[in-house]
């Protein structure tokens, strides 16, 4: 999948990657890559500004933590972040159903 498609849903992917457990930046990227089957081709460095922005919006919180003996900034969803994720997932499913309905009738 191209960069534009990824970019439009970056926030949803990041929030989803943190739904099950707290992760550091590399862990988030690795999770998205693995679970998407390597479909997303995107500059990994731009994930970090997005994580900071989501934190400033109150959807994530973070702290320095020791991961495998190394100091890493670990992110997790806030309560507001979980609500936002639920809303965005619903929006996404409605969008996908709409698109599917149209292309199936083409």
């Amino acid at each position: 999948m191209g960069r534009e498609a990824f970019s439009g849903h970056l926030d949803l992917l990041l929030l989803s990657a943190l739904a099950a457990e707290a992760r550091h930046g590399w862990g988030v990227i690795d999770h998205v890559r693995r679970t998407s089957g390597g479909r997303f081709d995107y500059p990994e460095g731009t994930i970090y500004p997005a994580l900071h922005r989501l934190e400033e919006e109150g959807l994530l919180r973070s702290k320095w933590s020791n991961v495998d003996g190394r100091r890493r900034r670990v992110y997790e969803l806030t309560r507001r972040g979980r609500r936002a994720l639920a809303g965005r997932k619903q929006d996404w499913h409605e969008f996908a159903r709409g698109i599917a309905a149209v292309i199936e009738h083409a």
Partner: protein
Amino acid sequence: MTADDFLDELSSALRGPRRRRQRLISELAAHIDDAIRAEVAANAPPEQAERDVLDRLGSAAAIARRWNDDRRGHRETWRRRAAVIALTAVAAGALGVTQYAAGKPQPPKPDAGLVPPPRPAAPMSEPSGWKKQE
């Protein structure tokens, strides 16, 4: 370009509070470290691993642009919030002045309840034992 060059270039291009910039640089340095370890663990030569990891990160300029755009958006959000708070305070003040001028609610009188109301003057009576002068 090495990882150090990348981080130096990024560091000089970032805008915003120093603490937040330092945090971003630290996170990216950790990311590079993790990613190179993973590549080397998969039998990539270290120099090749560093090049591949930096390629996947994207350019320092692109990361800085995204960061700086977000910073600008964040500042705008706070400016708008501050403007709303200021306008609300001004509106509340104006409402208070208007209500005061209209007499609603009546401001308490300064001496209300402290001084008893004046009693009607009692008729003068003569002390007993006094005699009316003829």
